[in-house]
């Protein structure tokens, strides 16, 4: 059972609902990073692939297993997808030294038709990743966009895009529908990133530390504008509210009456109306 004090809090969860990802720096000790990095380079990471297995059975002795069983990492995963997640797949993504990547923006879905449930993907950077080495690009707030995988490759730049620039041991935890892209590696060193996809096996409701579930700052986080949404900003906020309702179990949650207003279809007939009906 994940340590409650290590789980995400409600403000962090709201940030996840807004942006579609969370970043945690230096989660993994450097020595363990080096061991995991070696497994990616020498291919050891491939030996334990068991699609659809309980994730607890994957990498039983490998350094990568130790990475994802660190108490804080387990607690973050628990907060997002609950206990006993199912292993989907992983890949040790390599961008060789001096590689031009070209068009690569995509979403990892043919079409994810689930309304609220979601998978989690992680990007674990086992080595220092300066901007020149081309760490993963994320587009914050793109996780509600229902697009077909690589159809968005025409898009080269989006306002507010985030490049992964980090030290070894940093992990990004992201909603599997976030738009992302590999980038060019202009350094003389190969760059690795471990991507891991996990599926929830329980309903994703109140899995985090909910002691602050009534914090008024949650509404502010969920209502914050992301510039590239432009005129679709309000619809994005409404989608966030729907997801928050699902995650919190509070079906009446709302901000600024966005849903309350359009869900308001009163059928009660006032007595003064009766004479004219």
């Amino acid at each position, binding site marked *: 059972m994940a340590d409650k004090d290590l789980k995400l809090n409600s403000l962090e969860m709201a940030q996840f609902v807004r942006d579609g990802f969370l970043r945690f720096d230096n989660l993994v000790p450097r020595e363990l990073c080096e061991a995991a990095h070696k497994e990616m380079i020498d291919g050891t990471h491939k030996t334990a692939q068991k699609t659809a297995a309980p994730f607890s059975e994957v990498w039983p002795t490998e350094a990568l297993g130790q990475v994802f069983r660190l108490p804080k990492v387990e607690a973050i995963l628990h907060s997002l997808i609950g206990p006993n997640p199912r292993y989907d797949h992983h890949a040790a993504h390599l961008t060789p030294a001096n590689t*031009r*990547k*070209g*068009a*690569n*923006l995509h979403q990892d879905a043919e079409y994810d038709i689930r309304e609220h449930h979601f998978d989690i993907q992680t990007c674990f950077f086992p080595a220092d990743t300066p901007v020149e080495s*081309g760490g993963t*690009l994320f587009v914050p707030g793109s996780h*509600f*966009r*229902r*697009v077909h995988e690589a*159809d*968005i*490759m*025409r*898009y*080269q*730049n*989006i*306002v507010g*895009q985030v*490049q992964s620039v980090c030290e070894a041991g940093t992990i990004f935890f992201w909603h599997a529908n976030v738009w992302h*892209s*590999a*980038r*060019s590696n202009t350094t003389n060193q190969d760059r690795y990133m471990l991507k891991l996809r996990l599926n929830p096996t329980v309903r994703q409701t109140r899995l985090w530390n909910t002691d602050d579930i009534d914090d008024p700052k949650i509404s502010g986080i969920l209502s914050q504008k992301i*510039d*590239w*949404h*432009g*005129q*679709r900003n309000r*619809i*994005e906020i*409404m*989608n966030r509210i729907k997801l928050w309702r699902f995650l919190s179990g509070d079906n009446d949650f709302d901000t600024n009456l966005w849903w309350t207003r359009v869900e308001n279809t009163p059928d009660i007939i006032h007595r003064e109306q009766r004479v004219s009906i």
Partner: protein
Amino acid sequence: MAESQLRQQLLFLYLGNSNLEAAVVGWSFYDGTGKKKFEAAGESQEPPYKSVLDAMLDGWRVLQVPTLRAPQVGREYQVDYLDFEFVLEKLEAIDG
């Protein structure tokens, strides 16, 4: 100048709404002259122009403006691709 020595440059500007003066929220550039090669997504942090009108003032010709469509019934709150895609072109001379 002979027509064959001209090459097309395409600039895709994605705006926040249908107004040609609205702010650019995304952009792509494809260079038919071969002089500028696209490195990778997300390498540029500042859009080349503030708006489509701003680009027109710099000589870009508009090839396409987005069509405004009402959502299908039941899909009013569904979001997907960037909605306001404008395609612009310039013709540039190449050597030789």
